[in-house]
């Protein structure tokens, strides 16, 4: 299991690095999908098969498709890739990388010393338990999430409308 985890982790990190460095949007998205699928595998190794399936279905299968869809609609072409390459100036990486490194160091430090001794109690969590928790103590949150989705739907529909010149 640990081998699977490490392979997946390496794939995830590598794919994410590719995502953030590539200039071509569709290629970057493909790498991002790979990264997400790798994370799904990691979920599986963490004993969360339900979350793994959801990650694949929703994240990789639906949300990313939306991304691809939009990138396809924009259909920027080679010029955009060139532009992106120009924008990705080497000098621009310094500050953000430093910031991210600091954050990473802090987080790792916290995890390393904060998780405490003692092996994880472990044990997978079945979809049944997740569902019971969702519609038990988290029922209100589920309702709110439903509202959030509805708001997202309405917002996206409104924003996505192609305005005619008369409306401007």
């Amino acid at each position: 299991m640990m081998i699977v985890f490490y392979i997946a982790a390496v794939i995830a990190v590598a794919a994410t690095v590719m995502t953030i460095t590539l200039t071509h949007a569709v290629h970057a998205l493909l790498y991002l999908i790979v990264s997400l699928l790798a994370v799904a595998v990691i979920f599986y190794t963490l004993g969360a098969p339900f979350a793994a399936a959801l990650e694949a279905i929703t994240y990789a299968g639906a949300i990313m498709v939306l991304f691809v869809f939009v990138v396809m609609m924009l259909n920027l072409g080679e010029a955009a890739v060139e532009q992106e390459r120009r924008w990705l100036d080497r000098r621009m990486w310094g500050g953000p990388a430093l910031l991210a490194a600091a954050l990473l160091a802090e987080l790792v430090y916290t995890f390393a010393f904060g998780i405490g001794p003692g092996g994880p109690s472990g044990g997978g969590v079945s979809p049944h338990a997740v569902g019971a928790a969702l519609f038990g103590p988290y029922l209100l949150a589920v309702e709110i999430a439903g509202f959030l989705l509805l708001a997202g739907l309405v917002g996206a529909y409104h924003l996505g409308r192609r305005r005619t010149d008369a409306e401007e």
Partner: protein
Amino acid sequence: MTTAIWLHIANVFGILIAVVGASALLTWIERRMLGLWQDRYGPNRAGPFGILQVLADMLKLFAKDDWTPPFADRAVFIIAPAIIMVVILLAFAVIPITPAIGIVDMNIGLLFFLAMTSLSVYSVVLGGWASNNKYSLLGGLRSAAQMISYEVFMALALAGVVMLTGTFNLREIVNAQSGLWFVVPQFFGFLVFSIAGIAEAHRLPFDLPEAENELIAGYHTEYSGMKFGMFFVGEYASIILISAMIVVLFFGGWHGPWLPPIVWFLIKLTFFVGLFILLRAALPRPRYDQLMAYGWKFMLPLALLNLVVTGAVTLAFFNG
């Protein structure tokens, strides 16, 4: 231990080869049956009943120059057809054919199937995009919207079955149908799933992404050789996959009297594959907006209604 491993390997390769072979064979079967229903011959020259036509097609496709259009996005263009083969074949891994035959017995088998079908979108979308051709792009855009939409109803239709059995494990679902096939209590679920399945496999009448007469074969316009062959075979494999899922989820899988389980499964499978081909022969293709309206305005409410009624009945009578 060793025997088990060997058996497992045999299982894996057996199913793999069977599926690919069956898909290939299906190209010929379909053409013959269409010919039958449309009162013409179909391929009948090569071998008995033209069965060697499959081989001939295969040879032709393999022998063709593996050509990539210069204006295409090379990497994505190559990956796209591979994706559909990979995900469809992966999805077969969770299908329990008989108690003995079946690759993995996953406790989230149903979700795995859904995950794989949802990933199969990329094949079409990326293929359409990478071809860098406006017809292909249109086909890709259509398929993205269509497949995302129908995936929703598909999952919702399956939720009814999950409610009745309380598990995502396909083997347990089949076992739960030893008495009554779920097609009876979940008839609307079956209906929605079948229709959504056709859409997911973008078969006629829902083959808008590749509509020949408007999009010139849509997303695979630029494909040729074995890359086209993979799209082609992948489509038939997904027909088999959807049929197999219908059998597993709604028609009791391998259950049946007198005959051995494998036979029952194959009989049911063949029936649904035939049904899909018949649908292709019988139905016209809707307009794109009709397709989407049909999905969101009819299928979704139906699936939700099915879900609510199933939930209410389950809660009222079984209270599990």
